[in-house]
Every structure is written in structure tokens, then in C-alpha cells.
């Protein structure tokens, strides 16, 4: 590139940053010599900058001993622009300290930095904001969901390959019950919606695995997953509610006053072993009751129920009856059978659930 009157300042600044080759430095020197009207000059010594015997430090020292009247403004601006290193800045400060005139000028350059007026604000932001959940967002979330599914399937496959390493579980029965409850709520939705939320079931299965717990077990991540589902389903609000532990607690509180069977089951300490759980005398009766209610719900409603409160109670009851859907149970987990996959059809609705049965 040719050095001209229109760009020589850029070369001056590049030279200060050490970005010019020796050939370019010579070209710049020649150009400035030919144009004394530009009131700019390189120090004499800079021409010798290619002297191989000089260290970088010596070159710096040599260079900044030669800040003079004709090139000082470049140094001042380079200083203000933050182009100089610590040694170079000290050299400029030493130079201005020798002359009050240059010191004043240097300070004027410092003041050319424009202070941002943070009191000036754009007050119509709300008019610019776009609603979330458009087609583009749906696609982004769908892509994200697909990536999560692939990751989880891969992780689960790896888990199945490592039978000799028994996974460590810390969840109690209470925890398993809560998941069961959520899964039941999800499973009783119409088929097309069940397909969408199955990712969550798979995810919940893997959340229990020790290796995955730290990654996916937080409430924040659960909600993020719920949002992913949200982008794909029309009943999103209800789904989100069922993914919330608060709803679960409320629902359990509701059913406690409605049915004596539930009261009896709830009084049992569920933080015990699987065998104790299933041997409880109230369980079969509760199963029967819950299945009949699910069938009733399936007959009455083809979509998501309007009566959320009733449904909450129903799901809670069914979830307490842990053996309700174990008729076609098949083990897919480790030797300890901690994961159980259940397939059953009730009232025309297909259920496919993976239930975690925790151990203390």
C-alpha cells in the first residue's frame, strides 16, 4: 500500500505499535522527508531500528528518547488510545514532565476521550421487544431438545454397558414417588403429546444416575427442559405445573382429606425398601382405585382435563399406588433392578414409563 497524505497518520501509529517492517519504516521515513509540510517526523534513530545488535528494550529506549516537537502528538494520541505498553507510556510521561507546554498539551489530548452520558437512556425499549416463542425459537428449542435426547440416549447406553460398576443412589422412596407422580401425569396425556414429553421421562430416568445428577438435577434445568417442551406443545402451562414439585405437594395435601385409603397409605413410611413398599396391604386396593379413576378420566376426556384440581388429586393417588402399573413390568436396569420399564394400556391410552426405585 502506498503511503500518502491521506493515510500516513495510520502508518505513524502502526510504527509506534511496532507493526511496521523495517522496509515500511524506511518508506515512511522517506515519505515524511519528502513532505516537511506535514509536520511529522520519525526520530533519526528509528531508521536504524533494524540493527540486529539492539535488544527490544534498547530500541524502545532509543525510540522514546527521541520524542520531539514534530512527532509528539502521535505519541500523545497513541498514549490516549491505549496503544503503548508500560515502558512506552513511561517514556511519554518523562517527556512531558520536562516541559509545561507539552504537559498542558498532553492533558488536552487526555481530555479528548468522550465521557459517556449514562443518564441518556432509550425509554421505549418495550416497543422494540419481540414475543418469545416464534417459529425461529421453536426451531432452536427443538434442535436443543434433539441434542439432549441424543446425549441422554448415549449416556444411558453407556450406563447399561457397565453392569460391573453398581451405580450409587442417594434418593429415597419419597423422591421416587415424586417422579412417579410426574410421569403418571405426563403419561395420561393424549398420544401425540406423550411423544413430546417422553424426552423428560428419559431424562428423569438418567437424572437418577450418579454420573448425571450434577448435570441435570437442578430445578433450573428442569424448568429449562420444561420450556423446551413448552415450545412444542399447546398444553405447556399445565405441563410446567406438573413439573413443579410445589404442585405435587399441594395435590397430595388435597387428596389426604378425600379418601381413607390414601390416608392409610400415606401414613406408611415410604422411605423403606422396595419389598416393604409392595407388601403394604393398602397398596393393591389403592392400585385398584387409581386404575379405575384413570380409566374414568380416559373415557371422559380426550384432551387435557379442565378440572386441574381433580386431576392433581387423581395423579397423586395413582402415584402413591406404586404397584398400580407393574402388571407388565420388565427390568431394563442393572442387576439391582433399580430401573423398571412398564408398558400398559388403560382406557385407550398407552403408557410407557420408566420408574426409578431408589435404595437408601
Amino acid at each position: 500500500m502506498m503511503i500518502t497524505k491521506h493515510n500516513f497518520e495510520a502508518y505513524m501509529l502502526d510504527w509506534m505499535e511496532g507493526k511496521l517492517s523495517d522496509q515500511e519504516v524506511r518508506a515512511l521515513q522517506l515519505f515524511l522527508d519528502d513532505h516537511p509540510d506535514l509536520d511529522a517526523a520519525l526520530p533519526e534513530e528509528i531508521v536504524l531500528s533494524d540493527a540486529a545488535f539492539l535488544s527490544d528494550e534498547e530500541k524502545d529506549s532509543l525510540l522514546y528518547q527521541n520524542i520531539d516537537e514534530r512527532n509528539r502528538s502521535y505519541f500523545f494520541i497513541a498514549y490516549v488510545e491505549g496503544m503503548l505498553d508500560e515502558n512506552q507510556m513511561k517514556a511519554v510521561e518523562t517527556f512531558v514532565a520536562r516541559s509545561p507546554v507539552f504537559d498542558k498539551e498532553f492533558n488536552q489530548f487526555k481530555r479528548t476521550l468522550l465521557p459517556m452520558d449514562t443518564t441518556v437512556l432509550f425509554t421505549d425499549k418495550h416497543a422494540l421487544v419481540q414475543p418469545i416463542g416464534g417459529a425461529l425459537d421453536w426451531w432452536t428449542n427443538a434442535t436443543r431438545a434433539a441434542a439432549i435426547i441424543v446425549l441422554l440416549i448415549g449416556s444411558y447406553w453407556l450406563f447399561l454397558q457397565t453392569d460391573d460398576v453398581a451405580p450409587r443412589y442417594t434418593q429415597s422412596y419419597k423422591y421416587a414417588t415424586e417422579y412417579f407422580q410426574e410421569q403418571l401425569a405426563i403419561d395420561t396425556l393424549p398420544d401425540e403429546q406423550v411423544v413430546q414429553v417422553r424426552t423428560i421421562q428419559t431424562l428423569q430416568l438418567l437424572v437418577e444416575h450418579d454420573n448425571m445428577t450434577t448435570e441435570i438435577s437442578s430445578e433450573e434445568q428442569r424448568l429449562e427442559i420444561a420450556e423446551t417442551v413448552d415450545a412444542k406443545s399447546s398444553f405447556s402451562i399445565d405441563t410446567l405445573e406438573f413439573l413443579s414439585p410445589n404442585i405435587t405437594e399441594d395435590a397430595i395435601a388435597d387428596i389426604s382429606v378425600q379418601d381413607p385409603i390414601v390416608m392409610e397409605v400415606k401414613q406408611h413410611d415410604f422411605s423403606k425398601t422396595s419389598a416393604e413398599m409392595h407388601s403394604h396391604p393398602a397398596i393393591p386396593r389403592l392400585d385398584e382405585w387409581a386404575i379405575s379413576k384413570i380409566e374414568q378420566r380416559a373415557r371422559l376426556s380426550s384432551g387435557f382435563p379442565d378440572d386441574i384440581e381433580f386431576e392433581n388429586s387423581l395423579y397423586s393417588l395413582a402415584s402413591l399406588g406404586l404397584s398400580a402399573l407393574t402388571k407388565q413390568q420388565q427390568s431394563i436396569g442393572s442387576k439391582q433392578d433399580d430401573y423398571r420399564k412398564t408398558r400398559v394400556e388403560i382406557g385407550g391410552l398407552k403408557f410407557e414409563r420408566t420408574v426409578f426405585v431408589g435404595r437408601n
Partner: protein
Amino acid sequence: LNARQYNDLVYAHSDGLYRFALRLCRDDDQAKDLVQISFEKVWLKCEDIPADKGKSYLFRTLYNSFVDTTRKMKPDRIGEHCNAVSELVPHHDLKEILHDALNQLPEAQKSAVLLRDYEGYNYQEIGEILNLSESQVKVYIFRARKALQQIIGKIEAVL
């Protein structure tokens, strides 16, 4: 850019964009219009804009819109505008002196300094926004700082 990222841009950069526009055109209504237009254009093309380029795309869009608008304005109208602002801004402090001095610089120099000081862009980024080479940006910033220093010097001599 998706909708969420676009909205993040609104909250993070609409103030800075508005300040930039206001300094460029010195008219509140026009500055707001420029901000509005810029975000609209970004939203319409958001599928093609990488998330990390959203901010520079916004500033470039605003600058181009401003240049287009200025070209369409009659020269006498621009003159009226400058005079009005000069009269409205008394030289009470350095900030006002500087901003008044800034208005005397050529448009490209002024924009380069604003983007440098207000938004902290490097020379390459400023070049992308203003459609200039990095070398040109350095020249403009050098000349702008020198001009501003001289204006400050003259004002200090009077005061």
C-alpha cells in the same frame, strides 16, 4: 439470532445505540426513529445474523440509515439544525465543550470517535460498522483527537 437473543440486544444496547444516534443527528425524535428502524431491520434479518455479530450489525444499520437520511435532507435544514444545537448548548463544562466540538468534525471522524469512546470498539470493528479500512479508522481517530485537542486548547485560552 433468535427472539430471545434479539430481546437481549434490545435491553443491552438500545441505550448505547440511542446515545450514538443522538450524537450523530442531534435530534431526539430522529434519534429515536433511527433506533427503531435499526432494530426493525435487525429483526427482519435476524435469521441471517450470527448472535455474536448482533451489536455491530445494529450500529452499522443505524449508521447507514443515518447517512441515507442525511443525504436526503436539504443542506439548509442541516445548517438550521447545527445552529439550533450550538445555541442550545452553553459551554458550562468540558463535557459540553467536547460534544459541541465533536459536532464540528466531519461525520466519519465523529462516528469513529463515538464508537471508540462510547462503545469501546477496536479499529477493526469500527471499520466494519462504518465501511472503512482499519487504516482509515486510525487516520480518522487521529485527526479527530488532534482537532478536538486544538478546540479544547483554543477554548482554554479564551477562558
